[in-house]
């Protein structure tokens, strides 16, 4: 069986003031995560204050963009086409909600190694920010 992933119109995210750098980076093909200079922890999604120690010394770091699939589900009953929602564990540590794209949806599996790819939200008439998604890689 094969269920090729089809392009899906993604909802345009609301850009909150403290996330401008994040969305500017995705447009350049970079995934940023926040790291706290006080406790050293990475976190996702990005906050102004560290969710682990409430320090305001949180800094943007460019993630390697690699990780593995923590869990996933293929939404079979989706219009116009099925899509795969997942959580990916980044190599830096945090898990993030995402979609698995550019791959046969029937061959996605747990712990699969993936790398980040960016898909633009919205459509041609109303384009939105680029959204970090992931696609499986060999190894």
């Amino acid at each position: 069986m094969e269920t090729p992933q089809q392009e899906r119109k993604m909802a345009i995210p609301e850009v909150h003031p403290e996330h401008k750098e994040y969305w500017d980076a995705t447009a350049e093909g970079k995934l940023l995560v926040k790291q706290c200079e006080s406790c050293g922890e990475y976190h996702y999604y990005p906050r102004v204050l560290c969710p682990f120690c409430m320090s305001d010394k949180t800094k943007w770091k460019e993630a390697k963009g690699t990780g593995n699939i923590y869990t996933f589900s293929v939404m079979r009953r989706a219009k116009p086409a099925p899509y795969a929602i997942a959580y990916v564990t980044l190599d830096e540590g945090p898990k993030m909600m995402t979609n698995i794209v550019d791959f046969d949806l029937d061959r996605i599996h747990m712990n699969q190694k993936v790398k980040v790819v960016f898909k633009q939200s919205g459509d041609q008439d109303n384009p939105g920010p680029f959204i970090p998604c992931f696609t499986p890689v060999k190894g």
Partner: protein
Amino acid sequence: MSIEGKAYIAGAFEHPKRLVEDKSVAAIHAECAKGALEDAGLTLQDVDGYFCAGDAPGGALSMVDYLGLNVRHVDSTETGGSSYIAHVSHAAQAITAGKCNVALITMGGRPRAEGKSGVKPKKFTPNVPEVPFEIPYGPTAVNEYAMAASLHMHKYGTTSEQLAWVKVAASHHAQYNPNARLKDLVTVEDVLHSPMIADPLHLMDCCVVSDGGGALVVVNQEIARGLKRPLIKVIGAGESPKGPMGGNMDMTYTAAVHSGKAAFEEAGVNPAEIKYAGIYDSFTITVIMQLEDLGFCKKGEGGKFVADGNLIAGIGNLPINTDGGGLNNNHPTSRGGMTKLIEAVRQLREEAHPEVQVKDCDIALVNGIGGGLGSRHCSATLIMERV
């Protein structure tokens, strides 16, 4: 200060309709309020505390005015489908503190009449912090719970057949409920052959969409003793929210680990003493994970625990959701906590259908997971005793 023994559930009412085309959401709340007060033998004038959640149109201010209430205590705690379980606990706390004596809790909605369903993407709410980092990915109620199911299968070897047993039990109970949305008995094979919605959850792993609602009346001991209803005492409660924790997410367990522990400690009972459980069955996986996390079986063994009819009244060791639950009977406005409480009250009063009535049902537990197991949820636990 404990709520143990301070408050009693005196009135309970489940709206008989599963499709409400001719009345508004506010009218459903009002009909439920009237039903629960009549069940208790109380009147509108007796109510001095009001509780509602996000389904109440206009919130507590609109509803208090609409219902014609004159109250001195309001609480609109919103934790999704578990809200009403938390409301009973909060009502007991308010009664313990002397802030009210007769608390009315209402819920209701009409998602069927309004054409809503669980497979549609969640609504976009402005300013909610996580939304920009989730909404583009198409999270829905079903694919979020499906991710929890995928992980449970991967980590513990839980099977689709085991998930299906939760639905089989629900259908077994629903055949005796004339108001149930789905009354047909189904088999494990029927569940496995129903359409796949979001891997690994089939259509029959998902709760129904239904209109309607329910209401409860919680009163102090003195008032409870003056009424002509069995005494259903609140003996323990707990609530606990859980989310992706800044990226440190662990989707293998629910917050029932915490809410359940708190409730059992307050009540001074253990899982073996629970004769009947109302477990929010938004999806079959939700039941399996709650049963593990509440301590009815070991972590990872929930699949084995629910198999072979163990949840069916008269057959299994732990009868749950004897009205047919959200999977078969009713899931008004996609919030399952209220109907779980109502059936637990029926069981404790020995007013359940004779085919599903649990013998000597003196202690019951209700647990709800509101929100999304694959993102943020709140577990609420309540333990009640018939005295």
